[in-house]
């Protein structure tokens, strides 16, 4: 079942002669529990696509349908509610609040949604523990490494138990090793915790963790590919066995 579907999604920036078509009739559908990477050269529209899916920006034409509902028809209040409850965001620069500690940051979406701080922090602490940060609950962001800060940000994205996680270059500000850890964590978020994850990245190493890559160029989807080749491999193995018998 698809959790996200875009129909002829188009975004044009500017007006008059200076218009830029950032997205050009994009039709994309993402299944529940899938981990999808969006790749492409800079300026290909990948971040714009993520922003439109997340309701952070509105399309010039076309539709974004999340769990069967078109978000274009929503007023600002409903859109805010959708963003707070159904979607979790992860950004390149972590965007943690410097004066709050790890658990307060992780609990933030729930506190903003009106939950009592003690209850919200309990939920936040649960996610932090799953991500190996149970001993850093009271550390402030500046006391954490980049990789740890991004793990707090992923915990924050999940605190409200959204079904969809959108990550914009989540490893762009990390070294290779921490980047691998975050990519692997996002894979777990999809595979172990059953969330749908859509990630924008320009890094092949990071995209390789996904189930599928969508290639964008000049605002258009130029190719899509599944990364798992289980069936192919099995067919190749059988073929090889048959050849080996002949040797």
């Amino acid at each position, binding site marked *: 079942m698809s959790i996200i579907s875009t129909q002829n999604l188009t975004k044009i920036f500017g007006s008059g002669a200076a218009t830029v078509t950032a997205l050009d009739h994009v039709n994309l559908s993402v299944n529940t529990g899938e981990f999808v990477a969006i790749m492409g050269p800079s300026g290909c529209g990948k971040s714009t696509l993520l922003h439109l899916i997340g309701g952070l920006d509105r399309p010039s034409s076309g539709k974004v349908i999340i769990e069967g509902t078109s978000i274009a028809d929503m007023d600002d209040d409903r859109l805010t509610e959708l963003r707070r409850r159904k979607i979790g965001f992860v950004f390149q620069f972590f965007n943690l609040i410097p004066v709050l500690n790890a658990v307060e940051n992780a609990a933030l979406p729930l506190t903003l949604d009106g939950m009592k701080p003690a209850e919200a922090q309990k939920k936040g602490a649960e996610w932090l523990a799953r991500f190996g940060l149970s001993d850093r609950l009271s550390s402030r962001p500046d006391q954490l490494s980049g990789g740890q800060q991004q793990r707090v940000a992923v915990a924050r994205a999940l605190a409200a138990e959204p079904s969809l996680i959108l990550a914009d270059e989540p490893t762009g500000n990390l070294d290779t090793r921490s980047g691998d850890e975050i990519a692997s964590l996002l894979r777990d978020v999809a595979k172990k915790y059953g969330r749908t994850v859509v990630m924008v990245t320009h890094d*092949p190493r990071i995209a390789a963790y996904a189930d599928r890559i969508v290639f964008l160029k000049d605002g258009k989807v130029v190719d899509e*590919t599944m990364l798992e080749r289980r069936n192919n491999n099995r067919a190749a193995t059988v073929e090889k066995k048959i050849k080996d018998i002949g*040797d």
Partner: protein
Amino acid sequence: MSIRHAILGLISQKPRHGYETRIAFEALVGGGENWEVKPAQIYTTLDRLEEAGLVVRSSDLGEGEEPSRRVYMITLQGEEALREWLASGVVPAHQRDEFFIKLMVGLISGQADPERLIQKQRVLLFQELHAATVQRDSYDPRTEMAQILLLDKAIMHLEADLRWLDMTEMRLETIKGQPLPEPEIRPRGRPRKGDKGSTYPPPKKVVSPL
């Protein structure tokens, strides 16, 4: 590389019989799916090593139900050959790239769309990268660092290959506008009679005035 020196190294660790040598090699490379060696290849290599005096064969009488097997041991000469191999560097074979040749042939023959060739190759490399990433993550760094190192190497090479494809794609228009490398045609064989460099007719003998 041939697996000759790897086999020699495994036998220097301890005497082994053929089958054991094969599975030890496959374990070293993280499984037969990464680098499969056929039994025939192992036995041929062991025979050659024996002929060269680098290993000696003895018989193992087998215990209980086990049949007797040939066990190979390294010789002093074998140890010398192993040290020599270890001491020499390894030159990577970057220039023999099949995809590069395919792309160039695609360009000169006009039988393929270079953009499609690049995208197809990119997809294949991403699938390889995904498989290597999943396999590496399945290993435990506390006990299986050797397998992790090998896969890290594969991953880094695939990353480089993918970056090279991006760069090639960006330069495609430039290369389309340039003549591809052609050999300089030189006349073959002996120069024709009368041409420069020909010795026909033979130069007249200079008769000494004396």
